């Protein structure tokens, strides 16, 4: 895949975008890290201290951090398709790299914050969940792999949304609400394992981001019973979006049709 082969170009484009976006701010690039850190701080305080959840609050903040990357990417993707885009990225390969650099832009702070979180967990929250050093390293690697996977999933989801939102302009407003609902219906504080199996399946299948928190729980709790059914929706979404948009680079024609109308 061109994304791996041209990763240096992607990171160059991302760093230039960082420079451009944060140039006029006093704290510049720090904001990109301060925002998720603030979130993590609040969630950890609320769930670990106020709800006496111990390390559980900390686990939640890891999932929230990952979800923040998704929601920022999906929210910002509605602005990707614009008239000037074809002027400097006229071929499918260029567009793919440009779009992926925009996703990577939102995930960079996550890559930096994950080891910080694992380290802080070992220092402060290694009480109710006692992880050995090896287990902490394992968690770090697994969370990194999950983040990379989520980043690609996000890319597959964002490109069609960017295209659809140009035709269906209301989607830009709707997407924010849908993401909030998806977050509330994710297994953050609860797991969908009620006595009513229909409700369980509905929650696990209906939410395309359910699997992220499910995997996060699996990574942290180890003996956690993973709901494989939650992988169906992301699989169906990925395959159908690939067929609709990515196969034979259909998206470039779709951009052409959309951009000036």
């Amino acid at each position: 895949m061109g994304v791996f082969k041209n990763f240096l170009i992607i990171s160059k484009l991302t760093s230039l975008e960082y420079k451009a976006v944060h140039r006029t701010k006093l704290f510049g690039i720090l904001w990109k890290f301060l925002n998720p850190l603030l979130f993590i701080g609040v969630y950890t305080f609320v769930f670990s201290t106020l709800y006496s959840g111990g390390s559980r609050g900390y686990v939640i903040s890891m999932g929230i951090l990952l979800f923040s990357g998704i929601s920022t990417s999906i929210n910002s993707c509605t602005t990707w398709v614009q008239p000037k885009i074809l002027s400097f990225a006229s071929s499918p390969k260029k567009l793919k790299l440009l779009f992926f650099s925009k996703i990577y832009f939102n995930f960079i702070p996550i890559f930096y914050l994950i080891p910080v979180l694992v380290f802080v967990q070992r220092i402060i929250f290694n009480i109710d969940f006692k992880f050995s050093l090896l287990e902490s390293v394992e968690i770090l690697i697994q969370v990194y792999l999950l983040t990379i996977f989520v980043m690609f999933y996000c890319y597959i989801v964002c490109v069609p949304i960017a295209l659809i939102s140009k035709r269906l302009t209301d989607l830009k407003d709707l997407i924010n609400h849908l993401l909030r609902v998806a977050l509330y219906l994710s297994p953050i504080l609860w797991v969908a394992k009620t006595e009513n199996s229909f409700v369980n399946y509905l929650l696990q299948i209906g939410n395309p981001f359910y699997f992220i928190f499910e995997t996060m729980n699996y990574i942290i709790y180890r003996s956690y019973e993973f709901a494989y059914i939650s992988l169906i929706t992301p699989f169906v979404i990925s395959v159908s979006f690939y067929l609709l948009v990515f196969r034979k680079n259909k998206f470039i024609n779709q951009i052409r049709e959309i951009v000036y109308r």
Partner: protein
Amino acid sequence: MSNLITELEDCSFRYDVVKNIFLRKGEVSNYSNKLVLESVNITLKKNAIYGVLGKNGSGKSTLIKLIFDVLKPSTGIIKRNFTKGKLLDTPLFFHNELNSLDNFNAIYSLETFERLNTDNFEKKLAVFKELCQLNNEDLYKPISNLSSGMKAKVGFALTMTFLENVDFLGLDEFFSFGDAEYKKFSTNFLKSKIKESGSAIIISHSLDVLSNSCDEIIYIDKGRVENIDKPEIIISQYTKHLK
């Protein structure tokens, strides 16, 4: 088709209908169903330079966008006999908050998929600097802090540095950059690029540019192609119509 670069058969174009359900029917129908181009039938030959002339809103830009496959016709067929066509309408920037050199770096990465320390990079950078004619201090200023003349120069240079191996060139009002001296320089440079590509189509309100560069001019009025002929004939028809 072998000696033709493109052919439009009975092409019409209208923009999408306004979807907002809260707009009253009368308000929508007044402007949504109007044809921007109506039954256009033209054939453009290879190795010829065409101009497009017409008043503002007559459909010139829509026509050129149809030719270069940026827009799809609402009805009709377009046959294209070029593989590396390039439409130049707006100057190229990656980001307004970056300086000229960073903009160059970004576009270089996207255009060449190469690292920024190759010989080719140095060559292209030299071409870019020569084309934009800015001093070192201005090259490091963000685009948003440059004067509009300087911005135009950078945009022109960024676009032109990466314009290579084009077999059909489209220029939509892509003239008049910077001060009088630079305008002359950029126009001459564009003319050399047009010659290089062999076939081109130019939209301009400058009668000088059209009469000096084009073999034939397409005259459009209210979305209809009125005439295609030699520059002097079309220009006199156009100026009469203006009076």
